[in-house]
């Protein structure tokens, strides 16, 4: 890699993905190019069905692009997946109902062969982080939707992956809890230097969290705007009332509206 610039963690070049369905093929991604640098917090925003999830899944090696190139940590996405390069938080919590919350968080640790003692200390640590320490022994259905979502975030944080892929992790939460978790996530990100790719529907959330906002538009899914945020890394909640914030939010909203106009 060129010694001049920092090597990107995730690098997509003219990515295409077409789903073959029974009737017409669906062009989920078309000519998507994007570099994500180490320590970036990138938000993806765009109308429903524009390919946000699909793009995240490509990075995770869960979907195979039909065109273009994609590298993750310098490897192919599939190799990166095998190397357990990332933690993934799905759009829904997706906890296994037959495991307790602790058991769910332990799942990846068991699979990756962590020692028993290590497993326990890590579970305790991440439970602390998402404020569920008292609930480790409970089963998922004994928790409210928001708590489940937090558990699923803890599950993705329990093992050491430099990359965190999060697909609308806070979609099901009410505004207050959401604000709180946003703060927490920012803090975690600042502390651990992870690279985060984050899908959301909420413009304020995207602006508040990200160093880079990617606006997408559908049919076929493509990137219509990439906005670099000038906000500082330190972000109190009331930064949302500053003119810079409102200015970026406005630009994002405009980008989104343009995408919708196609319909």
């Amino acid at each position: 890699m060129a010694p001049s610039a920092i090597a990107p963690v995730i690098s997509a070049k003219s990515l295409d993905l077409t789903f073959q369905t029974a009737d017409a093929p669906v062009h989920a991604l078309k000519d998507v190019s994007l570099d994500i640098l180490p320590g970036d917090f990138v938000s993806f925003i765009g109308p429903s069905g524009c390919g946000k999830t699909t793009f995240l899944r490509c990075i995770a090696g869960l979907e195979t692009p039909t065109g273009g190139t994609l590298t993750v940590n310098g490897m192919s996405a599939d190799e990166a997946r095998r190397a357990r390069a990332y933690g993934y938080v799905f759009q829904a919590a997706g906890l296994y109902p037959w495991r307790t919350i602790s058991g769910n968080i332990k799942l990846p640790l068991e699979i990756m062969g962590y020692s028993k003692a290590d497993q326990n200390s890590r579970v305790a640590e991440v439970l602390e982080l998402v404020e569920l320490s008292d609930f480790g022994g409970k089963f998922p259905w004994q928790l409210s939707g928001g708590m489940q979502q937090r558990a699923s975030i803890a599950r993705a944080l329990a093992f050491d992956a430099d990359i965190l892929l999060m697909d609308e992790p806070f979609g099901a939460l009410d505004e207050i809890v959401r604000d709180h978790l946003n703060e927490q996530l920012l803090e975690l990100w600042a502390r651990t230097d992870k690279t985060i790719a984050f899908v959301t529907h909420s413009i304020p959330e995207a602006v508040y969290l990200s160093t880079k906002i990617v606006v997408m538009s559908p049919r076929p899914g493509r990137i219509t705007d990439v906005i670099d945020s000038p906000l500082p890394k330190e972000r109190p909640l009331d930064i949302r009332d500053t003119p810079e914030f409102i200015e970026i939010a406005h630009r994002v909203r405009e980008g989104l509206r343009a995408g919708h106009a196609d319909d």
Partner: protein
Amino acid sequence: MGKWLPVLTVILAIFAGWYATVPFMNIKETLSALERAGAVVTPDSPIERRDAPSFALVVKNSFAVPATYAQDRPRLPAPHQVALDLWQTTVEKKITSKRSLVYHGWITLSATLLGFVIGTGGGILLAVGIVHSRAMDMSVMPWAIASQTIPILAIAPMIIVVLNSVGIQGLVPKAIISAYLSFFPVVVGMVKGLRAPDAMQLDLLKTYHATQAQVFWKLRLPASMPYLFASLKIGVAAALVGAIVAELPAGGARGLGGRMLTGSYYGQMVQIWSALVLAAVLAAVLVLLIGLAQRMTLKRMGLT
């Protein structure tokens, strides 16, 4: 209390209906017997009676109604006749006696249990194969369905003869037939169960780069538990039927199937009914036990 009231009511209604039906079912033979004993019955020709509706016979010969409940070879035995026979063949006989239904029940039960173990084991293995191999999925499933359209009673004797000729006798042939009947519901249920995890649950493990074995043990198997138990319940009842069916041609005529056969052979309807009732009780107990295991397992898994 509230739980039992409806069941008791239905059982009572069944018994009432049963008692009410008995005279109509048994009237013809009863009248013939009474006539032989010297009673005057109308009409007095057996052939006319054969062609007369039972209802008319009961009405015209109402004096014969009590006798219909005490027939030796009834077309429909009265409940108390069955109960009495059950009492005599279970409680009053030593359980090692060949005349004890407990003895015969045990013979059938042992074949059932062995067959059930073989059948479920095979069924689960087949389901695992079907879920993991596309080739198996596509080729085996249609034939598994077709296999269930083969009348088992027709090939049971042949299976027994073939196994006999390679020196396998006794419990095993019966168990194999019983397994043949119980494997299918298990296959169907387990294929459904092992496929129950949704794409997201599978993707999660993919992000961990889990092995096939890990996917099986940590996801597919636990997710299939409710389905497994549902099919085990059907499977165990099928295994019992299989064991009974296998007793017909197995020779020796031991077991509940043997009782039904010999009962039929000597026209002992009461004996058939006793064996039937015991078979149903056995099935109910087995299903109950599986239900218990189910509740315990699912509870430990936090699924209830």
